[in-house]
C-alpha cells in the first residue's frame, strides 16, 4: 500500500508542476496593472516604481515564476497585493470552512447515493427504483445554489431548525458546526448523490447478475450479507472512480453555495480575488485547490486498491 501511495504521489508531481505553470502564466495575463490598483489615483510615478519593484514586476516572467515556485514549495505563496495578509494564511484560514462543506456534502452524497442506488438495483422497475431514478434525474438538474435558497426558506426562515447563514468552526462547537454545515451540504451534495446513485444502481445491477453472487447464494449466505458484502464491495469499484470526480465537482460547487449561506470560505475569497484582481491570492487559491483535488485522487486511488485487488501493484 505504501508503494502505491508513493507511486501515485510521484505521478502527481508533474501535474502539480503544470498546474503551477498554467496558473502563474494565466494570472499574469490579467488585464489591469495591479500597481495602478494598489497605489490608486493619488499615486505618483515614484510610488508606482517603488510598488512595481516591491512586487518584483520588473523581472522577466520566467524569473518571477521560478522565484514564486521556489517559495511555493516551501509553503510560502506570497502575500496579497492589497494587504499584508499572507496568501497561505488567508487560504488556510478559509480552508476548514470549504473543507467542512465539501466533506459533509461528500458524506451526504455517498450515503444517499449508495443507499438509493442499492435500493433501486435490488428491485429493478419497482416503485423504489422508479422513485430513485426519477429523483436522480431531477437531482442532477437542480442548481445547487437554488436548492440552497429553498432549503433556507423552508428550514431556516420558516421552521428555524438551522441557522440561515454563517459558519461555526468545528473547534468552537461541534454541534453548532453540524447545524451550520448541514443545509449547505445537503444543497451541495444532492446533485452528486444523484450521480452516485445512478452509478451505483447500474454497477449493482451488473454485479448482482454475476456468477459469484449466485454462487454465494448457493452457499446459503444471507441476502443481507450477499448484498452488502459481496455485491456492494464490487459495485463500489466503478463508483470510487466517479467519486473522485464528484468531490472535485463538490469543491467547485462549494464556492457558489458558500455565497447562498454567506459563509466565508474559499469561494468568497476567490470572488474577492477576482474582483480585486489580486493575482497572488488567485494563484494560491488555484494551487491549493489542485492540491486538495490531488489528495482526493490519491485517497480514492487507495480506496480503489482496497476494493479491487486487481488494481494493487504486486
Amino acid at each position, binding site marked *: 500500500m505504501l508503494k502505491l501511495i508513493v507511486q501515485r504521489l510521484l505521478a502527481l508531481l508533474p501535474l502539480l508542476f503544470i498546474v503551477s505553470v498554467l496558473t502563474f502564466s494565466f494570472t499574469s495575463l490579467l488585464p489591469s496593472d495591479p500597481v495602478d490598483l494598489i497605489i490608486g489615483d*493619488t499615486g505618483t510615478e515614484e510610488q508606482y516604481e517603488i510598488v512595481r519593484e516591491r512586487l518584483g514586476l520588473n523581472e522577466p516572467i520566467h524569473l518571477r515564476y521560478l522565484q514564486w515556485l521556489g517559495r511555493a514549495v516551501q509553503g510560502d505563496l506570497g502575500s496579497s497585493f492589497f494587504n*499584508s495578509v499572507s496568501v497561505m494564511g488567508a487560504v488556510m484560514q478559509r480552508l476548514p470552512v470549504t473543507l467542512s462543506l465539501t466533506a459533509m456534502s461528500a458524506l451526504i452524497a455517498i450515503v444517499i447515493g449508495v443507499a438509493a442506488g442499492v435500493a433501486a438495483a435490488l428491485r429493478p422497475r419497482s416503485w423504489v427504483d422508479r422513485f430513485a431514478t426519477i429523483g436522480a434525474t431531477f437531482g442532477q438538474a437542480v442548481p445547487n445554489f437554488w436548492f440552497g435558497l429553498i432549503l433556507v426558506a423552508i428550514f431556516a426562515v420558516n421552521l428555524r431548525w438551522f441557522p440561515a*447563514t454563517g459558519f461555526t468552526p468545528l473547534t468552537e462547537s461541534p454541534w453548532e458546526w453540524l447545524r451550520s454545515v448541514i443545509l449547505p451540504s445537503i444543497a451541495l451534495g444532492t446533485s452528486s448523490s444523484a450521480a452516485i446513485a445512478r452509478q451505483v444502481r447500474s454497477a449493482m445491477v451488473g454485479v448482482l447478475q454475476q456468477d459469484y453472487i449466485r454462487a454465494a447464494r448457493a452457499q446459503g449466505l444471507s441476502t443481507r450479507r450477499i448484498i452488502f458484502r459481496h455485491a456492494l464491495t464490487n459495485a463500489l469499484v466503478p463508483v470510487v472512480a466517479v467519486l473522485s470526480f464528484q468531490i472535485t465537482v463538490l469543491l467547485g460547487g462549494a464556492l457558489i453555495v458558500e455565497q447562498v449561506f454567506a459563509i*466565508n470560505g474559499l469561494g468568497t475569497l476567490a470572488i474577492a480575488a477576482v474582483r480585486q484582481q489580486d493575482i497572488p491570492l488567485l494563484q494560491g487559491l488555484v494551487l491549493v485547490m489542485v492540491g486538495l483535488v490531488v489528495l482526493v485522487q490519491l485517497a480514492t486511488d487507495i480506496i480503489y486498491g482496497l476494493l479491487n485487488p486487481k488494481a494493487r501493484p504486486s
Partner: protein
Amino acid sequence: MKALIRNSIVSAVVCVGLGLGATANAEPSGTFKYAEQVKLITMDPQQQSGSGVPYLRPVYESLFEKAPDGKAVPLLATGYEIDGLNVKIMLRQGISFSNGEAFNAEVAAANINRGVQLAIIEGLKTVESAEAIDDYTFVIKLKEPDPAIIDSLCYTGGMMLAPAAMADPTIDRNPIGTGPYVHSKDQSREGEVQVYTPNPTYWDKEMIGLSRYEVWEIPDDTARLNALKTGQIDAGNWLANPQAAIIDRTAGLKLVRNTGGLNYHVIISDREGTVVPAFADRNVRLAMAHSIDRAAFGKAVLFGLSEDSYQPYAKGSWAYNPDLEGVYAYDVDKAKEYMAKSAFPDGFTFDMPSIPIYQSRLEALAGFFKEIGITMNIAPVEPGTLARRSRTTDFPATNLVWNTNTDPKFLSLRYIYEDAAYNPFKTKPSEELLSLAEAGLQSVETDVRGPIYQKLAAKLAEEAFLIFVANSPILIGASEKTDANPTVVYRYGEDSINLRGLKAND
C-alpha cells in the same frame, strides 16, 4: 480675518460623563460583538478611505471627538487655539501607546504629517504640515483657512498611531494606538472577525468595561440580520435596505436611527465628456436628474427609511436650502424634453460601478435612465473598493453616500476643486462654484457660512453633476438587550458605538 477660539476641558469631562452610567472600578468582563457591513480593507486610519471606522475605534483614539450634541470635544487633546492658518493643539499628558511608546507632541505632529503625505484623508487636505512646539503642544499649519479642521481631527485624520506602527509595512493588520483595546491578531480570523482585548496600559482604565470586543465582518445584509436575530452579534450597522426594514418591524430588535444621514447621490465624474461625451451636456445631466422617481425609489429600494433628496444637507441643517426642495423633481416628460434638447437625443451608454449593497439602487436607477434612452451598465467592484475605484478614471460616473454630518467644505474637497478626490477627470469647476467654495472657508460662524453653502447647493443643482436621490439616517440594528444597555452610546454621526465605558449586555 482672525478668530480665536478657546475650548475648555470642562466640556470634555461633561461628555465623558455622559457615556458613563457605570461604577468606577469594576473589572472588565464580558464580550460585546458588533457587526460591520463593509469589509476590512486596512487598519491604517491614514490609508483608510471609505467606511469601516468601527474596526479602528477600539485601537485608535483621535485628538478630538464628537459630543452627543455634535460639538467637537477633546480626547487625546486638551484644547486648541485657532489663529488664522495656525492651529495650536494642546495634548493630554502621561499617555502611552499600547506598545509602550510615549504619546507626545512630536508623535502627534508626525502622525499629522504622515496623513498629509499619504494624502488620502480628505480632512487633512488643507493641512500644510505639523510641528511640535513643546512636549505636549504642536501646531498644524494650514494651506488655507479651514473652519472644519477640528471636526476633521475627530475622525481618522485625528487618530494617533504609534511611531512603530507608522513604520510598519504590515500596519494594515497590526494597528497600535492608545485606545482602550488592543487588536489581537491571533484570535482574529481574516475576513470574518477582528478581536480586541483590553489595553493594559490604557490611560483611563475605568473606561474599559469589556474583556473582549469583537467586530464581525459580515457584508451580507441577510447574514448580518440573522446574526443579530440569533444573538451572534449584539449590534451592527445597516443601510436602508430590506433587512433594515425587517429589523424595524421585528419584535425584540431595535433599529436605531443615529444622528446624521447618508445622502445617496450619483456623481457624473466625466463631466467634460472625455469618455462619455454626453456627460458634458448639461441637458443630459438634468434629464437624468429629472428621470428619477424619488418617492418610488424611497419606498421600494430604501423601504421607506429615507427622504427624497435634492441637495447635500437635510432639513434642520444650517447648510440646508429650502428652495431646492423638488428642484429636479421626478418628471419623465421634462426629462425627455431635456434629452431631446441635448446633443444626444438617441441616448447613450455608460458604466457604473456597483457593490452588492448598492445593487438594487443601481438597478432602479438603470430603470429610470432607460426610460429616457440612457443605458447604464452596472459593473460590480469588490465591496470596500467603491470609494477607491471612484477616485480613478475607471468609471465615468459613480454613486456614493454623503454623510450629512460632514462639514460642507468637504463638498468642495470631494467634488468641486480640480484636484478634488472624486474628480478623477480633473474637471475645472465653474468660476461661481469655486468662489462660493472659497467663500465658505473664510469664517467659522455658521450664520455666515450657511447662506454661502445654500447658494453653493443651488449652483450644484443647476450644474447637475451631483444628482442627489435619497437621504437615509445612519441605521444601527441592535438587539433588545443592547437597546436596554445604558452604556451603549452611539457616536454622533458615525456608525459605531463609543467604546469608552461600554459594558457587556449582561
